[in-house]
């Protein structure tokens, strides 16, 4: 399918790009790797008047390791997956980047585009031909158009239940990452979790003119390890049905658990942090019962909706528990391996 017509510009500095995006507001859209923007435009989910190509901006493609690890937003997922520093210091991120789509997506797709990925659902991500057999939905249309997942629901305010399916975000949130955003008002650093609004209609908390510049990840403590497990229909290409990232830090004194983070992807319009797992495990040694308790907490917190094709929401909820149960022992094993090395 042909792309709709658009104006194309390729600013070479971040200031020029910010100025242009601020001027064109909702008529402009950023293109980085284009692996999400191009299919979305072909399927007429968006028809921006102007595409602002940020890939010509110099100096946004890097992995630096000084006080912390910094990744420029235009760094490709393929580069991150293969990077020596990332494999050594943040293996969970290398793995998560390597789980995105297929090699072709990772060679073109950037970390910035992956974090700013739009949300998805079985109606929204279909061809215009499919969509025309139903009314326009709330996300694609106006504020009084109905969500096509629950078109007959009456009386309640409209909600978009599309799902955030990026693979690197759960891993990066479990690693405690921040992001640096450049906008018309200058630079600001926010926690990565705060990039996500949870509102399916406007899932990414960026204003007109805002560009994600870099991802900042603190060095993990030596006695910590993380695992990202993804469940999808096929082993490649597909978006996650569920993704679970766990990150465990142990106390060097007695090997008890100091900190635990569990983040679930693809069950809501934003990544979901499982609250309260720290209280379950803090000061205790990991046992099978403890793993069960944490997996049950993750299961309780996950509320997938019938927004994806391929399996039921109940199956996805169950998979959250199973993936958490698999991930925790794997992370502990990694800790023991690192320690005995």
């Amino acid at each position, binding site marked *: 399918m042909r*792309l709709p017509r658009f104006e194309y510009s390729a600013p070479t500095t971040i200031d020029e790009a910010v100025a242009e995006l601020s001027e064109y507001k909702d008529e402009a859209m950023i293109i980085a790797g284009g692996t999400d923007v191009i299919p979305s435009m072909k*399927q007429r989910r968006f028809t921006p008047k102007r595409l602002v190509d940020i890939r010509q901006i110099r100096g946004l493609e890097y992995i630096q390791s000084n006080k912390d690890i910094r990744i420029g937003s235009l760094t490709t997922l393929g580069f991150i997956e293969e990077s020596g520093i990332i494999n050594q210091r943040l293996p969970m991120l290398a793995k998560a980047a390597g789980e995105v789509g297929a090699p072709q997506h990772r060679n073109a797709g950037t970390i910035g585009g992956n974090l700013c990925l739009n949300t998805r659902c079985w109606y929204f991500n279909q061809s215009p031909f499919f969509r025309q057999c139903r009314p326009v939905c709330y996300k694609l249309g106006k504020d009084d158009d109905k969500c096509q997942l629950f078109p007959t629901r009456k009386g309640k305010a409209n909600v978009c239940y599309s799902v955030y399916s990026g693979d690197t975000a759960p891993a990066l949130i479990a690693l405690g990452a921040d992001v640096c955003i450049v906008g018309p008002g200058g630079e600001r650093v926010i926690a990565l979790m705060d990039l996500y609004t949870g509102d399916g209609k406007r899932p990414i908390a960026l204003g007109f003119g805002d560009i994600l510049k870099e991802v900042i990840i603190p060095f993990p403590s030596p006695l910590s390890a993380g695992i990202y497990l993804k469940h999808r229909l096929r082993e490649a290409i597909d978006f996650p049905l569920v993704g679970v990232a766990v990150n465990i830090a142990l106390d060097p004194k007695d090997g008890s658990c100091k900190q635990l983070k569990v983040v679930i992807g693809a069950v809501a319009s934003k990544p979901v942090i499982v609250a309260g797992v720290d209280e379950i495990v803090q000061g205790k040694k990991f046992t099978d019962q403890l793993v069960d308790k944490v997996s049950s907490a993750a299961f309780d917190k996950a509320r997938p909706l019938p927004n994806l094709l391929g399996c039921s929401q109940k199956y996805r909820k169950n998979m959250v528990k199973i993936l958490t149960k698999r991930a925790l022992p794997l992370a502990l094993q990694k800790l023991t391996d690192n320690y005995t090395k």
Partner: protein
Amino acid sequence: MKQLIQLKINGQVRDVAIDTNDTLLEVLRENLGMTGTKEACDLGECGACTVLLDGRPVHSCLTLAIRAQGREIETIEGLAQNDNLHPLQQSFVDRGAIQCGYCTPGMILTSKALLDGNPSPTEHEIRRAISGNICRCTGYVKIVEAIKAVAEKEA
């Protein structure tokens, strides 16, 4: 309005008049008549349109032609030397790794990128490298064998 740009394809610089909304796939097939690169899903799912950009496989259907300026583009037409097929092409023919042929150009370019960077890959590495190239005749076993045979010969 059309713009004149230059693309470096298989080592040759070509002048093409394009619209901003033309994909590299459309320019290769329609402007340049290079129909070796296949169009199938046109949405970056199947890998049939794979070309190498600076040596790495990407979907030409998701690449704007205007953004391919200044980069090395490699298509299936660039592999054979005169009448001699590239070893991967010959191996695919010899081992029956081609059925309908639609996935073949993408499959061969992806395997070429793999072998250029890693001359003796494991079977797992081969399968992972071609995981973005869907073969709907499901001839994967023979495809993997054909790639392995070239790797073993070169090793």
